[in-house]
């Protein structure tokens, strides 16, 4: 495995993923804000949560990119379209499984069963994160597909 190549492109792909997510929110395509969502696991302070969440997202993206690299190594080849396919699979797992599990993992996120106790909690993402806007699945799929494409295109096998 080419550790140096993974470190560089894993980092850059994660930066792009985060930027696309933030851009999608800024453009009004979705309300999902990954850094905020992850950061509020650690603090309710909105401003700090975004900073902490950005760092967590970076580290998480980096770690996830190892899986991509392992697959490329196992296949003996990379390439942008293989990376894109893995990214699509990654996006589907995030949407279908990750979002469903999140209310159980996140200490400050309401579940669909919350109530009647009112508490200042993050709303649950719902199936495919549709509670955060109908275009959310699209934004997440695009971001993860591009994440995979970058890794596939630029990671060099050892």
């Amino acid at each position, binding site marked *: 495995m080419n550790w140096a190549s993974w470190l560089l492109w894993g980092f850059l792909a994660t930066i792009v993923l985060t930027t696309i997510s933030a851009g999608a929110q800024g453009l009004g395509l979705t309300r999902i804000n990954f850094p905020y969502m992850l950061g509020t696991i650690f603090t309710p302070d909105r401003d700090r949560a975004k900073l902490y969440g950005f760092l967590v997202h970076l580290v998480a993206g980096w770690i996830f990119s190892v899986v991509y690299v392992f697959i490329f190594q196992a296949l003996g080849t990379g390439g942008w379209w293989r990376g894109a396919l893995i990214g699509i699979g990654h996006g589907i797992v995030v949407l279908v499984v990750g979002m469903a599990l999140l209310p159980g993992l996140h200490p400050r996120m309401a579940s669909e069963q919350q109530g009647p106790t*009112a508490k200042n909690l993050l709303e649950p993402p719902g199936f495919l994160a549709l509670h955060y806007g109908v275009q959310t699945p699209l934004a997440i799929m695009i971001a993860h597909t591009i994440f995979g494409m970058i890794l596939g295109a630029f990671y060099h096998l050892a």
Partner: protein
Amino acid sequence: MLLSNRPIAKIHDYAAVGDCRSAALVSRYGSVDWLCWPRFDSPSIFAAILDKDKGGYWSISPSEPSQFERAYIRGSNVLETHFICTTGRATLTDLMPVASEEFKRRHLLPDHELLRQIACTEGEIKLKVAFCPRGYYGTREVEIKNLGPNVLRLEIGRGAYSLRGNVPLKIHGNEARGAFSMRDGDVLQFSLSYSEESPAVLPALGENATASIKRSVNWWQGWAARAKYQGPYRDAVVRSALALKLMAYAPSGAITAAVTTSLPERIGGSLNWDYRYCWLRDASLTVRALLGLGYIEETESFMTWMLHATRLTQPRLRVLYNVFGGIAPREKELDLAGYFDSRPVRIGNGARHQLQLDVYGEVIEAAAQYAQRHGHFDRTTQKVLIGFGEYVAAHWNLADEGIWEPRSGGANHTHSRLLCWTALDRLLALSDKGLLDGVPRQQFELERGRIRQQIEHRAWNDNLQSYVSVLDGDSVDATLLRLPWYGFEEAQSSRMKSTYRKIRQELSPGDSLLFRYRSQPPEGAFGICGFWAVEYLALGGGTLKEAYDVFDQLLKYGNDLGLFAEEIDPGTRDALGNFPQAFTHIGLISAALTLEEKERGDSHPAAQTGENVKLGSREVIS
């Protein structure tokens, strides 16, 4: 009242039970005639209130002629209906069980449950049970399956409904029925639960259900006891707070306008709208009510929802959103008979794309009141609020549909201008208090002054000696009573006093009620407008005694449980419009709080908020 057959209930014959995710309407005769699961705006399984033949219902009622009495268990949203027959008495308890989050973490509970317990309390009584579910607003037939001892199951879409009882019901096609004799001390229980995940949790009956009722009563009573209001109308205020709480959607913090659709504003008419969405205007006024009563968690939860839900459209605000901040569905008509033939029955809401500029002022006013009592805004919230202000500064001069949402197009509504003024005024006040950084003061002061000038000149009609509904117009509406509430004009000013006289003259159907505006044919008197008059009088437009008198008269228009719909028929005193209606209950609480503040000699919160900058706004004009 002695009744033998299944009686037809009117709007005020209903009570609401719920769990802050959905709600059911139970008639005074023991019939559940409205229920949507899993959310307020989901399709119904019972909708007899909109079509007694097709809608579906679940009734538990005496077989013999009976008298019906009912009341909520004090301080709760648990309903008790008493059946009084010549042979005996029984009490039906209806509720959607609730529990603390801590309890729910430790126990397996159904996602959604409607629990009905009937206890014979005296002599003997014969009862009949009719369970007649219909899918998707009565348009889909259902197949009821017998799953074994006393458990029925039906599946509609992705959801499975399970009806469990401690006596069997016999399936007849798409209905299940049973008849039972009870003696003093006998207790029957039925639990209808809903799940979209299998295996579904089937709640145990018997002691478990009894404990569930007790736990729910305790939860509601604990919540109601926190209401800070200690004035003479505590019962009415607490009931209104409990009704408002029923309309809150706890997973997101949203507050819906009502739990029903298409209950008519005019019997036999077409003013039938779906109110199961969150209107920012109503919800912002709710903040004032809940904050005033000391319900901080609900307020914080709503503020968070509001900032998050509106994220996709900011700085533009939509008029209404669904409970998760999505756009409300397109309006659609259903093939139902309608409440007393009031058609069409609609779902979705066509006002979703309207421009209603007053919404900005309501949202900012709510934020200002929240900040005034409880702290600071983070940077994101500050940016969002300033963004709203910038939108208002750029667009306040547009014609809009305004608070009453006519489908006839836009106009230059005085009330919308007032709330645009309020938006800029409150932002400047927040800036003065150091709670907002980066407010473009010069621009906001300039535009605020322009709006004031426009209202003072073009919304005042010299011939009528009154403020008017639209600029350069010649008619009044009840929103003009709000000019003092937001601190724009003193309640005791000569302009306001003559405006009040004009409003009473034009919009009063008698007694203390007020129409929102003149219409032909006339619709009902609008519930909240009467309470606005109370606040106007209490703020200085009249005496406190006059305000109390009007308030006392208005309370009589609630139903026997203290619940209000949107409107009241002045002739028959029947409730009209969706039910229960947040807007009316907000008005009741707000009026009671204003009366209490005046008794204590406190200044009005809205006036306090704008106080610092009021002089500034006048300087700009001069």
